[in-house]
């Protein structure tokens, strides 16, 4: 019988919280070799293998079907994979790692509360400022879906930002941002506000299953999903 591989976050709170869920689900994870090893197994289940990976790699591997399950944020799944719902199934939402992907603009843009307001500003931007409205983000796909797909806004440019995105408007690197926030305090500290219809995704950590054909009729797959769901 083939080995089932589960990819888990390799460090931090996400790793601890994921391990705790599996523990409660009756699937206690033990490291192979020393504590810092990136391989693990589940006590009493020799046919299950744990791979500790970075959260964004988990999204990629699960999209490619090279692991069977993964625990990662829904934001990384939806951002990292084209046609996410066709490639993977969100088997369980795990109740930790809550964060929203949001559109935030400078607080002082008193006239901008909604995406429609932003659309108006974007439409005029080039004639007023000689360039398109710039959005700092690492969420290219989610930004495009929200702006172009849901709100018919085409005229903007994405500026890639891999960290400290909240600082981009004040630093002049971009006009607004699309970023992840859990409490909103970093946004507030940087004098940014979330648009009323600017929540693109309410994300949390999920148990995600690759839609692999060989999962069909494999009772072990169903059992893992069932056990984790009960533990949430």
């Amino acid at each position, binding site marked *: 019988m083939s080995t089932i591989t589960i990819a888990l976050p390799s460090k931090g709170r996400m790793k601890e919280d994921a391990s705790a869920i599996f523990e409660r689900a009756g699937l206690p994870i033990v490291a192979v070799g020393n504590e810092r090893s990136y391989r693990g197994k589940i006590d009493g289940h020799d046919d299950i293998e744990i791979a500790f990976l970075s959260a964004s790699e988990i999204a990629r591997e699960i999209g490619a079907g090279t692991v069977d399950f993964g625990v990662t944020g829904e934001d990384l799944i939806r951002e990292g994979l084209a046609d996410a719902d066709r490639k993977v199934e969100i088997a369980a939402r795990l109740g930790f790692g809550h964060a929203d992907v949001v559109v935030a603009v400078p607080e*002082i843009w008193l*006239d901008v509360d909604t995406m429609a307001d932003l*659309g108006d500003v974007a439409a005029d931007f080039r004639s007023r*400022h000689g360039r398109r409205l710039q959005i700092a983000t690492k969420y*290219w796909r989610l930004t*495009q879906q929200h702006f172009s797909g849901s709100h018919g806004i085409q005229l*903007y440019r*994405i500026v890639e930002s891999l960290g400290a995105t909240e600082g981009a408007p*004040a630093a002049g690197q971009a006009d607004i941002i699309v970023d992840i926030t859990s409490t909103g305090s970093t946004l507030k500290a940087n*004098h940014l506000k979330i648009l009323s219809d600017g929540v693109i995704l309410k994300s949390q950590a999920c148990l995600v299953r690759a839609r692999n054909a060989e999962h069909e009729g494999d009772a072990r797959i169903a059992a893992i999903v069932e056990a984790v769901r009960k533990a949430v």
Partner: protein
Amino acid sequence: MPLINMPEFSGTLLDEFAARGTARIDTPVIQPAAPFLDMAGEDLRRRIFLTESETGESLCLRPEFTIPVCLRHIENATGTPRRYCYLGEVFRQRREGDNEFYQAGIEDLGETATAHADARAVNDAMQILHNLIPGRRLNVTLGDQAVFEAVVRALGLPGGWQKRLIQSFGNNAHLRHLLMTLASPQAETGLSPELAALLSQDEAALIAHIDRTMEETGYSTNASRSPREIAARLKEKQSLAETRLDGSALLLLSEFLSLEMPLSEAPAALAGFADAAGLAMGAALVTFEARAEALADLGVDLSKVTYRAAFGRPLDYYTGLVFEVSRDNAVLAGGGRFDRLMTLLGANEDIPAVGFSLWLDRIEQARAR
């Protein structure tokens, strides 16, 4: 199997272009990506093949010819009017069809007799297709951005709403959504008491307040939107929120958007619509009629061309004519007038421009059938 070689009718096509007095222009396959993303929007990003140079410049494989041809024209500074033709490979990620295929077309830059230039573009596309696919019935559909803009302006909506509607012309789902919003009273946008107090002051005080806040929050040095711009739009927004399109105006707009008829009947029908609605559409109708006449002068049977009022392209550089030639639901040629593009791309003066491109892969398939 992607089309690797030039289509076998390429020679015929180049002869057609030469017979029309156009000059062939070539452009590099690898292009800076910024102009395409700037003009067409970020949505294009996932449909083009992007890469980065060693120095970090964003590059792409040529996704179309109009922008590179226009950039070449500006760079060469050869003066206008000029008519260019092109034939070459373009690269796009498509859901259906191959990712690399051939396009050819004509860009007519700087011709100030615009009705004539429009008619010539439509007629050239029709004739060339007719010669390449003889004896087959082609469907020609024509729309006009300027006529829609004239209707919207004549309805007397506030400037902000006019802009929203004009922006979304050609994106029918979004346009319908806007019309629904206009028709139904919205919940108050809930001005905070603080903001309401600010708005009741005069504009200078509002601007001063915004300026002060920017200073205090350390935002002002790099702010793109000035206090004046924010204050002005806040006032505009207040008037937008209070606007309802009255029932009859909404009905008129919907009625206009549903117009579809042979081009031979369109000038009279549009004039009749404007009269009945009491709308002053002046110049746009004159241009429309002049274009139709110019087409008839070139020998086009206007009863075989369809005018569809809602036909447009949601890109802000299209200004007037748009058209499409199709067969069995496959678009074989598409074109239009883009008077705003040249200055957006950096030309120092306004240059009227019209052109069309031919989808050679689809033409090849149509010929094979």
